[in-house]
């Protein structure tokens, strides 16, 4: 049975009891991303304090893989430097594009290494990446805001990526 390679216990644990779920105040930016092939959605908020990610909160509807991935993501970025989160993002993206061949760095990805099996299923890679893409988008927008002059016109706070089905 190959199902266990995808549905690792760590993934099922995060799915059943997601961490940091729910939308919270305060936040700098809120984004809404969808997976056009299946209708999975996430609304995600990011709060930065200088170079530190002070909070990531989210409300999402989707499969166990997308739910667990969002939970794992928040564990990896909340309370850490933005740069650390972006490194994890890069590692996770590479892992998901590896078709099961990568040996992930557990020091960087922690629980996210459990998604190695998911990368063998092309149809599910997008599920795993949904929250990560939303976080990267929201974080980029939050950083842009930091460099704006006070009272400046802020870019659109919400965005939806183009469908790529």
């Amino acid at each position: 049975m190959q199902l266990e390679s995808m549905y690792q216990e760590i993934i099922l644990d995060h799915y059943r009891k997601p961490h940091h779920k729910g939308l919270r105040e305060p936040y700098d930016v809120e984004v809404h991303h969808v997976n056009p092939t299946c209708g999975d959605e996430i609304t995600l908020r990011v709060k930065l304090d200088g170079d530190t990610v002070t909070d990531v909160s989210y409300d999402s509807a989707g499969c166990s893989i997308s739910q667990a991935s969002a939970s794992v993501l928040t564990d990896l970025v909340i309370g850490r430097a933005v740069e650390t989160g972006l490194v994890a993002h890069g590692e996770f993206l590479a892992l998901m594009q590896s078709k099961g061949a990568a040996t992930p760095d557990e020091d960087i990805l922690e629980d996210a290494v459990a998604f190695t099996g998911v990368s063998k299923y092309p149809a599910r890679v997008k599920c795993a990446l949904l929250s990560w893409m939303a976080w990267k988008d929201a974080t980029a927008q939050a950083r842009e805001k930091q460099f704006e002059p006070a009272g400046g016109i802020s870019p659109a706070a919400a965005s939806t990526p183009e469908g790529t089905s």
Partner: protein
Amino acid sequence: MNSDSMTEVGTIAYDVEQLRKDFPILERRVHDNQSLVYLDSANTSQKPRQVLDALAEFYEQHNSNIHRATHALGEEATAGYEDARLKVAAFIGAPDPETVIFTKNSTEALNLVANVMTWGPRGLKPGDEVVITEMEHHSNIVPWQILCQRTGATLRWFGVTDDGRLDMSAIDELINERTKVVSLVHVSNVLGTLNPVAAVVARAHAVGALVVLDASQSVPQLPVDVDALGVDFVAFTGHKMCGPTGIGVLWGRRELLEELPPFLGGGEMIETVTMQASTYAGLPHKYEAGTPPIAQVVGLGAAVDYLSNIGMDAVAAHEKQITAYALEALATVSGLRILGPTTAVDRGGAISFTLGDIHPHDVAQILDGYGVAVRAGHHCGRPIHQRFGVSASTRASSYLYTTQSEIDALVVGLEKAKRFFD
């Protein structure tokens, strides 16, 4: 032959095990040597050996372009292509084969009709109305949205009742003297619902509106007679009816096809061309610009022969019987909610459902692990999922080769999925 595989359909013995031998792919094993249980035929049907052989024979023996090559192969290819048109016309009860237009698929056929109503004698104007339904496939929603954007016409739609039927209560207000075209699905690819086409046609024609029927799910499963249906256009696709991908059909009434402007411009659809202007070929070539999918048309002709040999009455009776069996079997799965009619009355074979809180992607993934192929997602029908308050569903869909034991395998797989995510 056992009693499970033999059912009496009228006076004909329908032997599903014998039919399955025509489909090489049904012998496939997947993931750790599991038998394939293919329950995704509303997505695309499998292809019998007879169709695969026709494709190979065309390329090996007759391959040539059509309608222009003055050599033996060109004549053979042209004859094969036009012979398929005659077969398709007979299959759908079209009295005039020249009203059978070959397209890429149903999507292109529906876009064709929407496009030729942007201009010309039946071009829409602000104030005109287009009526569709909430249970349409995206391919019968988006082209009409685009038509309305381009012309300033207004898009309206039938709602759907809680039990998955078309809400006919406001039909006289919905279809009115401003309505220029009504486009609806014959059998829903999500709910399975068979729609009351005659009542819609009667009202639409009473106010002078055209009726377009998306028959993508019905032509493969039911005897369809376009003339008896009374509609003005019918769209369907080859790959859901044992034929190849890349070939679809638009049937239309001759006087409309002659009156409406062309869709795609190019070779084969012209009469004469000057640098200033062109005149157009007669039917069906006016709507078949460019080199068509010749082998696929020949393959569709073979698919039509295959279905005709079984008999569409028999195919429909099997579909009804297996759908009834599946609906009863699924009713035993606790936490399972069917979207659409729960009995096999006025219903096709697509059954979409939710299973507790388990996401359809996860349901389908577990089923796939046991060799059961279903579809998960919104099946290109996001609005109808929204109507029922869900973002996605799992869909099992049967066809002429589906057996009761395959439905049993589905039910076993669903119970396993429930335990997995418990």
